[in-house]
């Protein structure tokens, strides 16, 4: 852990991530306006430092007069929920599949891992589009779609670590004291595989945010008027020359959130991987 504190980029990442999480949690307290409230008189107001801007709308307003800062703050909430849910789903299912495959080996392993390979073989966005097209476009379905597409990466990591751990004596020892398989897998082996799993989780948060934004941009995720960053960008495509701020700020928000999780995840990996220690 002290390894992590000393890593400056990881700390920067952690700072951004905590900022993002705090913003999401305290969104109602932080946002100056209602994120979905439209105002016909305040359409496309530029940010406050612009000559026509006002301190009423710090980052300006969009084409329906909604306050962009408020929408970004609430958007953090949406992104956090999406990433927690989809990564949580992928984590739970991937860990289950991976550990069972790695522990029992043989046919079960082949079947599970070939299914994972099939999921991996699809371009993830295409797969997500298929899921969403089947279930209908909504944020929940986008979360499901992202979660499902992320299952293989967890399953693979867990399977690899479980395979490695299975060869160690403490697993035989656990069996020799009469523990049942379930107990051995989840209480004895898995805690030893947490390192790479934590890293994968953090990095997946970043891609989940990005993918959710991508799906929403395509109109398959968050539906209006939900303040979602990707959807905000999609909506403002036509305005890019006239009112660039409408598109710029959600873009920066996505960039920062993804960057934060990635930096933090990389730092965690460096801290947890003994081979990278000096």
């Amino acid at each position, binding site marked *: 852990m002290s390894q992590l504190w000393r890593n400056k980029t990881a700390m920067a990442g952690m700072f951004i991530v905590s900022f993002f999480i705090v913003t999401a949690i305290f969104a109602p307290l932080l946002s100056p306006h209602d994120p979905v409230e439209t105002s016909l008189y305040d359409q496309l107001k530029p940010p406050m430092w612009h000559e026509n801007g006002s301190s009423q709308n710090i980052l300006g307003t969009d084409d329906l007069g909604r306050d962009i800062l408020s929408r970004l703050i609430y958007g953090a909430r949406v992104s956090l929920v999406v990433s927690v849910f989809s990564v949580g789903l992928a984590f739970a299912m991937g860990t289950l599949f991976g550990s069972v495959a790695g522990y029992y080996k043989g046919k079960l392993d082949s079947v599970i891992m070939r299914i994972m390979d099939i999921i991996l073989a699809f371009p993830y966005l295409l797969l997500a589009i298929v899921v969403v097209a089947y279930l209908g476009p909504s944020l929940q379905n986008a979360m499901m779609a992202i979660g499902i597409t992320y299952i293989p990466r967890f399953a693979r990591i867990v399977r690899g670590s479980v395979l490695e751990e299975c060869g160690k004596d403490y697993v035989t*020892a656990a069996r020799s004291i009469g523990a049942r398989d379930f107990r051995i897998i989840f209480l004895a082996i898995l805690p030893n595989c947490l390192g790479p799993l934590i890293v994968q989780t953090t990095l997946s948060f970043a891609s989940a945010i990005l993918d959710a934004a991508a799906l929403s941009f395509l109109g398959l995720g968050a539906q209006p008027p939900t303040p979602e960053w990707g959807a905000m960008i999609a909506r403002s495509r036509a305005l890019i020359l006239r009112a660039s701020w409408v598109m710029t700020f959600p873009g920066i928000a996505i960039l920062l959130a993804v960057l934060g999780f990635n930096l933090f995840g990389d730092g965690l990996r460096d801290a947890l991987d003994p081979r990278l220690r000096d």
Partner: protein
Amino acid sequence: MTHTSPLLDIVHLQTHFFVRGQVAKAVDNVSLTIESGKTLGLVGESGCGKSVTAHSIIQLIPDPPGKIVGGEIFFNGKNLLDDSEKEMRKIRGNQISMIFQEPMTSLNPVFSVGDQVGEVIRLHQKLSKRETRDRVVDMFHRVGIPAAEQRLDEYPHQMSGGMRQRVMIAMALACSPKMMIADEPTTALDVTIQAQILDLMNKLKQDTGASILFITHDLGVIAEMAQHVAVMYAGRVMEYAPAETLFTSPKHPYTIGLMESIPVLGSKKKTERLSTISGVVPSLFNLPEGCLFSDRCPDVFADCRKISPRQYETEEHHTVRCLKYA
């Protein structure tokens, strides 16, 4: 002796491994008995089937590729091979427990040692947290871990090899099993610690009346621990005798070879080289015909390469698998 049935009676056990269409007879027709409160030493080179025999008893053979294809294992008069996995789980750790070779890897690195010993108790007995903890502290005292209360919360990596092996023994004894299987428990330890651990095991055996199946490749250790000895070679028991008989009058050429390979301290024949058994252990996939030891045997004669010897009884309780005694 005649009216009491032995605690463990292995009859014609056969454990085979099926690898890439080939069969390795890792344990072939092994029969052993262990009486209550006694120690049976199982000696042999690496890969001779000692550990496979031990794992077969509590049915921890990885399947696939391994499978117990024949034989019976009577424990307390009941055939363990008829038991379901659920019944076996109740026996493992509770009635038969195991001590492993590597104290470095046989403890789970992410849990405190107290938790791990407590786990065995939790699995088999309904005790409160407090009682479990007291029991663990008591076990730690019995296996000679100083400052037991403090060490309870330590993690395996904070302990020395000897201490970890004591923890393993505490784990094995936690539920007062009738039998312990010790799979080379001292091989990874240095000699002074080894002596301490052996003394401890002998003392605990006397205290608890548990039997021990002691696996090792060290004849010196066997002399100190066992009442009976079985010498294994390539999956078969070559010689089976009371410890004293085996050391005073070994019969099988392999046993004799093993004894001669032990360096003698202060030997007069200083210039002489240490004697070895020539050749290597045959591959289990490619066993010689006739006697398995025939390729390396100094006393080999023509029939050895044709006829597979049975176990011949040279005197009471002493059997040898060699045509010389047919």
